[in-house]
C-alpha cells in the first residue's frame, strides 16, 4: 500500500458506499484525476471530489513512485488506480497508457515555445548583466536599477545535418538591431534537441517536419492564442 487512506475513508463516513475508485493521471509536472467516484449500494457510480490538498501525502507518494520508475520501461506508469472498500481493503495498480503519453507529448510540444522564450529572456539578462551590457540607473532610494536593453528579439534555432544546434540571437532596441553572442546553457540545448527529436519522430503524424524554429519575442510572455504570430517552424 502506497499510503494511508484513512483521510479518504473519513470523508466518506456519511455516505452509503461499497467501493471508492480513483484513477490518477500523472506525468512529469502534474497529477490529476482521470476518475474519482464511489459506488453506492445500488451499484451507481457517483462523482466525489476530493481537493488535492486534502490528500497531499498520497499525491507525493504517487509522484515519488512515478519518478523512481519513469526511466524503466518495465515499471513506468502514467495511470495509478486505487480501489478502497469499507472494510479497509485496498487494491492498487498502475500501468502505462500510450495514448495518454502521446497526448502529454503533444501538449508539451505545443507550449514548448513558452519555455524557450522565458529561458531566453532569463539567459540574455544574466549574460548582459555579467558583461555590463545593460544600461543602469540609480533609483530614488539610491539602489542600482537595470533598464531594458532590448524591446524585441528574434531567436533562430537550427538543427544541422549532424544534429547540432546552430543558433542566432538578434535583439532590437529603439529600432536598432544587434546580434548577441549568447552562450546557451547545456540543459537548454538539450531541451531544444529533445523537442526536435520528439516532434520529428514520436509526433511526426501531428507535426510537420522541421529543422529550424524561429521565435519572435517582445520581451514578455507569449500567450498561447497569439503563438502563430510569434513562433514559426520551417524545414530548410
Amino acid at each position, binding site marked *: 500500500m502506497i499510503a494511508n487512506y484513512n483521510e479518504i475513508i473519513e470523508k466518506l463516513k456519511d455516505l452509503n458506499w461499497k467501493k471508492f475508485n480513483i484513477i490518477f493521471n500523472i506525468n512529469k*509536472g*502534474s*497529477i*490529476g*484525476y*482521470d*476518475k*474519482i467516484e464511489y459506488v453506492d449500494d445500488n451499484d451507481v457510480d457517483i462523482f466525489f*471530489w476530493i*481537493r*488535492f*490538498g486534502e490528500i*497531499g501525502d498520497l*499525491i507525493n507518494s504517487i*509522484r515519488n513512485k512515478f519518478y523512481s520508475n519513469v526511466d524503466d520501461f518495465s515499471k513506468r506508469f502514467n495511470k495509478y488506480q486505487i480501489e478502497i472498500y469499507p472494510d479497509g481493503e485496498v487494491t492498487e495498480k498502475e500501468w502505462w497508457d500510450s495514448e495518454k503519453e502521446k497526448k502529454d507529448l503533444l*501538449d508539451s510540444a*505545443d*507550449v514548448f515555445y513558452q519555455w524557450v522564450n522565458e529561458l531566453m529572456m532569463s539567459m540574455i539578462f544574466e549574460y548582459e548583466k555579467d558583461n555590463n551590457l545593460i544600461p543602469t540607473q540609480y533609483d530614488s532610494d539610491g539602489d542600482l536599477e537595470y533598464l531594458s536593453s532590448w524591446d524585441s528579439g528574434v531567436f533562430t534555432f537550427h538543427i544541422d545535418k549532424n544534429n547540432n544546434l546552430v543558433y542566432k540571437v538578434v535583439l532590437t532596441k529603439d529600432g536598432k538591431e544587434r546580434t548577441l553572442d549568447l552562450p546557451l546553457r547545456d540543459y537548454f540545448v538539450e531541451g531544444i534537441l529533445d523537442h526536435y527529436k520528439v516532434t520529428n519522430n514520436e509526433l511526426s503524424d501531428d507535426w510537420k517536419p522541421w529543422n529550424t524554429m524561429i521565435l519572435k519575442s517582445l520581451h514578455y510572455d507569449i*500567450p*498561447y*492564442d497569439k503563438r502563430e504570430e510569434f513562433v514559426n517552424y520551417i524545414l530548410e
Partner: protein
Amino acid sequence: MEKAVSNFKKANPNVKIKAEMKFNFDGNSKRPTSVDVEIYKDGKLDLELSKNYENP
C-alpha cells in the same frame, strides 16, 4: 493548462471559466513547491483541467 483553456474558450466563448489556485509551500521557502488548480466551466468542476502542478 493554458492551451486547454484557450482552446476551450475559442470553441465555447459563452461558457464562463473560473480558476481557483492554491499555492503550496515547504518550510520557509517563498517559492511554492506545487499549486492546486481547480477549473470550473459554468460552475461545474472540470476533471481534466484540474490538477496539482509541480514547481510552478
